[in-house]
């Protein structure tokens, strides 16, 4: 009995410490491999490849209460360096002046069209309606508060032109809101965590999710899989899985820059991350049964990666609870956690954080100079990332399990960071 409890206790503790460490190395190796295999040989982001034939593109912008941002967003879209595109703004039942502003913009600019949804229907429905009324085979979807770089469309469309198996391309979101520490930390997070993961997942062959804030689609592929589901909290994770389960490719294009607003309060960040975690869990639960077929084996690595992170979240929580319980009552020897602060594994974990940021910033200096000035602010962030991951996982999984299938998902961003009014 004692041997078993000791074995379980040790396994739990080792898994809690070593999983983040080895995942960090997996992402670093994958991202570096991706860089040398593809990224390094490409042009700079402001010098996109020339397309022999530039197919028409519909840019879809779902908006819900974006009165403060939508003019800026449309202004950036009107400056796109692409020969043939229309802008479809979808006002998803906004209660502020978004509709009035969009009508005025549409009157002023030939490229801009407006779809008003009489009542708020959620982002997935707004995307569906935008696709339905679009006139192009290729769709670029961005959020109503994002600024798309003028070269981004060319960078994304080249993938569709060159490969018939590409159904979607996800761009490179860059943080605009950098007034607070939380904002600055997210600059590094998007490089060191999300950027590395996406690059590494391209080496696995499949990605867990596109960035909903900037992605491009082949409409025939999206139509084939039944468009965006209306009942998933994160429509971007869901559509990524639907397309890849239908054997389409999704590409990550780091040169397709899109400047985004992010929360700069802890409350806003928590709500956003909880939604992401719940969305990931919903997708995991929904598609688990479809993965047992051998032809879907390319999805296994991303599924296992996410599933393991959920198991890790609960393992870490168990370790912390055992440590706290051990301070109050006598536990069996195998379950006693002497300290939750590791000794040498902690050193290696800390140094791995330094290395992870150094590599990711080095890869991302192609897109943004002076990233290393954020190094000091955030080298501890990967530690915090894993803690946030633990908390959101523990809270989100029961929510995802309890959610009824078919229940409509509607969401709104209530914190977009410090955003001065001009």
């Amino acid at each position, binding site marked *: 009995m004692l041997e078993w409890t000791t074995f379980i206790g040790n396994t739990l503790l080792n898994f809690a410490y070593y999983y983040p460490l080895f995942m960090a190395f997996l992402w670093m190796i994958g991202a570096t491999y991706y860089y040398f295999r593809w990224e390094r040989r490409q042009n700079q982001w402001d010098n996109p490849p020339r397309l022999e034939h530039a197919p028409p593109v519909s840019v879809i912008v779902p908006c819900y209460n974006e009165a403060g941002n939508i003019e800026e967003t449309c202004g950036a879209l009107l400056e796109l360096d692409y020969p043939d595109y229309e802008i479809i703004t979808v006002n998803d039942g906004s209660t502020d002046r978004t509709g009035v502003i969009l009508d005025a913009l549409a009157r002023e600019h030939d490229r801009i069209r407006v779809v008003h949804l009489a009542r708020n229907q959620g982002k997935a*429905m707004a995307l569906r309606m935008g696709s339905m*009324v679009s006139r192009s085979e290729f769709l670029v979807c961005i959020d109503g508060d994002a600024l798309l770089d003028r070269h981004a469309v060319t960078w994304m469309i080249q993938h569709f032109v060159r490969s018939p198996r590409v159904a979607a391309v996800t761009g490179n979101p860059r943080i605009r809101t950098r007034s607070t520490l939380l904002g600055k930390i997210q600059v590094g997070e998007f490089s060191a965590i999300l950027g590395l993961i996406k690059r590494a997942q391209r*080496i696995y062959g499949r990605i867990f999710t596109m960035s909903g804030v900037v992605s491009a689609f082949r409409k025939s592929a999206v139509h084939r899989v039944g468009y965006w589901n209306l009942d998933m909290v994160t429509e971007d994770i869901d559509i990524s899985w639907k397309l890849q389960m239908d054997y389409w490719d999704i590409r990550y294009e780091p040169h397709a820059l899109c400047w985004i607003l992010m929360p700069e309060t802890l409350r806003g960040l928590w709500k956003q991350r909880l939604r992401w975690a719940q969305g990931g869990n919903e997708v995991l639960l929904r598609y688990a049964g479809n993965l047992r077929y051998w032809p879907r084996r390319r999805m296994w690595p991303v599924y296992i990666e996410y599933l393991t992170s959920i198991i890790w979240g609960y393992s870490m929580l168990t370790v912390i609870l055992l440590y706290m319980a051990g301070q109050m009552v006598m536990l069996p020897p195998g379950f006693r956690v002497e300290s939750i602060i590791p000794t040498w594994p902690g050193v290696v974990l800390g140094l791995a954080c330094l290395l992870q940021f150094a590599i990711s910033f080095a890869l991302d200096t192609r897109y943004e100079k002076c990233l290393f000035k954020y190094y000091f602010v955030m080298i501890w962030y990967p530690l915090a990332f894993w803690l946030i991951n633990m908390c959101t996982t523990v809270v989100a999984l029961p929510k995802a399990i309890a959610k009824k299938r078919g229940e409509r998902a509607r969401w709104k961003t209530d914190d977009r960071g410090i955003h001065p009014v001009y």
Partner: protein
Amino acid sequence: MPETIINRPDLQSFQQKYGQSLITVLFWVLFFFFMRPLIGMVGWIFGIQLFTDIMIERGGYHALFDLLTWYAGIVVLIGLVLGSWSLYNLYRYGRNEKRKHHPQPVQAGEISAFFHVDPNWLNELQASKKITLEHDAHGRLINSGEELDEVWPRISHYR
């Protein structure tokens, strides 16, 4: 004129300014707490006796070398597994492309069938500058086929 990067620390709230700084300090403390053995080793190298208990009682640098050997081995293994999987995919799918031709663009008839709307009305929608759509509680369009706002011009060209 709005700028792409918004860096206005002067607009931070009290909580953002001081609360987030406090969290940062706490995490730096945690970071250095993780570094205790390393700091202990450096202290030991420079002869500071206070730190020697960490190095001697907890296995000292021998433990570090053992650990690093294990880590290096596992990291190499991870790299090999990832590289092999990537090469397998390249071999399996790189030259065995089933989608060899670009798919036909989705046709208006297919779209109208999916969304249960009248094909003529869909054509009108696709040519309109301003559209208002209404859905029922289940997300079905309920004004499919209604006249569009004639005040707004149809799209002639947007190129």
